[in-house]
């Protein structure tokens, strides 16, 4: 039999601990770092969002925990037997169906909604120290890459400079990609696929020796990991390009500082050195785009308030200036 992987060993350790508790006649429990808002901290040293020191327990003989405990054990068991032992990967949705069964003799399902199994998978990341990708669970892929980069994906050699208009369809799990040859000088990551297509048609990456990446709106884990790997392993500067609005600023914020929901995975996903290219309030003035400004709606305004209150934007004069320009457009954008 093939040697056990680290992921298999970690899940086995979790199972053995529960069996040990049962054999000792103890209440089986799993303890791990809490993932709720009260335990999310902005780490000043790394300048990323991280989990704090608070830990919690999930035990079987506790009415408030028993269902979650059962879900955790069931999902862990499915991941180990169906995925890790076979070497196959499955989507979050597939894992949901694999764990959605009725407990015999009852009418209770182990999970009713996908959000439950999704959350347990994130919990298992914290419990085992393994990433979702290491647990062989994928999500919808949503992103493309073109440029002067040759890589190996599942044994296939892919030259991202020869992939036509669509480019390389970035998989959900990018940990296992092997960078074979990278000639680019920087990476340009953009929110909008339409801009990606414009730049690709103009062969921008060829003329400027770079790699272009897009992921349609929010940045997926796979794309974040890919950008981080290009930054760390290939020493490439990464620039983010979004709309001039709070949603765009937030996209940059997540790539650079991490997110609350995935604070436990910051180490593998954040890029502290990433820079925001635009568009900025200054670009709007410089290139005379004032007549193309769009009014903010209620959601924009609410979001703007939240974003300007983020610790990492609060102590940053440049970002506060951008947000202020967005807020008082009439005065500031007037020459």
């Amino acid at each position: 039999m093939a040697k056990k992987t680290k992921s298999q060993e970690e899940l086995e350790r979790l199972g053995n601990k529960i069996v040990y508790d049962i054999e000792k006649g103890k209440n089986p429990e799993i303890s791990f770092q809490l993932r709720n808002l009260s335990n999310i901290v902005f780490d000043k040293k790394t300048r990323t969002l991280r989990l704090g020191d608070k830990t919690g327990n999930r035990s079987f003989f506790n009415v408030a925990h028993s269902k979650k405990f059962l879900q955790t054990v069931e999902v862990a068991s499915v991941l180990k037997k169906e995925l890790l032992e076979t070497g196959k990967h499955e989507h979050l949705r597939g894992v949901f169906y694999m764990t959605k069964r009725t407990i015999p003799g009852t009418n209770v399902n182990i999970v009713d909604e996908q959000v439950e199994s999704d959350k347990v998978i994130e919990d298992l990341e914290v419990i085992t120290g393994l990433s979702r990708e290491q647990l062989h669970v994928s999500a919808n892929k949503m992103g493309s890459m073109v440029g002067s980069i040759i890589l190996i994906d599942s044994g296939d050699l892919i030259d991202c400079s020869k992939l036509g208009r669509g480019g390389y369809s970035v998989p959900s799990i990018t940990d296992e990609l092997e960078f074979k040859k990278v000639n680019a000088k920087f990476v340009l990551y953009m929110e909008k696929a339409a801009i990606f297509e414009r730049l690709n048609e103009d062969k921008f990456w060829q003329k400027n020796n770079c790699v272009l990446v897009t992921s349609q709106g929010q940045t997926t884990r796979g794309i974040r990991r890919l950008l981080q790997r290009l930054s760390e392993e290939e020493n490439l500067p990464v620039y983010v390009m979004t709309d001039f609005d709070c949603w765009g600023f937030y996209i940059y914020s997540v790539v650079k500082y991490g997110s609350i929901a995935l604070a436990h995975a910051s180490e593998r996903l954040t890029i502290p050195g990433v820079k925001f290219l635009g568009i900025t309030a200054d670009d709007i003035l410089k290139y005379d785009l004032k007549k193309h400004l769009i009014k903010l709606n209620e959601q924009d305004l609410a979001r703007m308030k939240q974003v300007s209150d983020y610790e990492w934007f609060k102590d940053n004069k440049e970002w506060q200036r951008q947000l202020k320009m967005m807020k008082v457009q009439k005065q500031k954008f007037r020459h």
Partner: protein
Amino acid sequence: MAETIKNDESAKAEIQALSAKGISFISEKYLPEKIKNKDFLE
């Protein structure tokens, strides 16, 4: 700054607005200038 922000006093803009300057303005002028001048925010 006033506590309540009126909608008509605030604004956002899309990257695509650059297309108003020409279809390839973004790839021929905007981006090369930004990158050459290292005009970034951190």
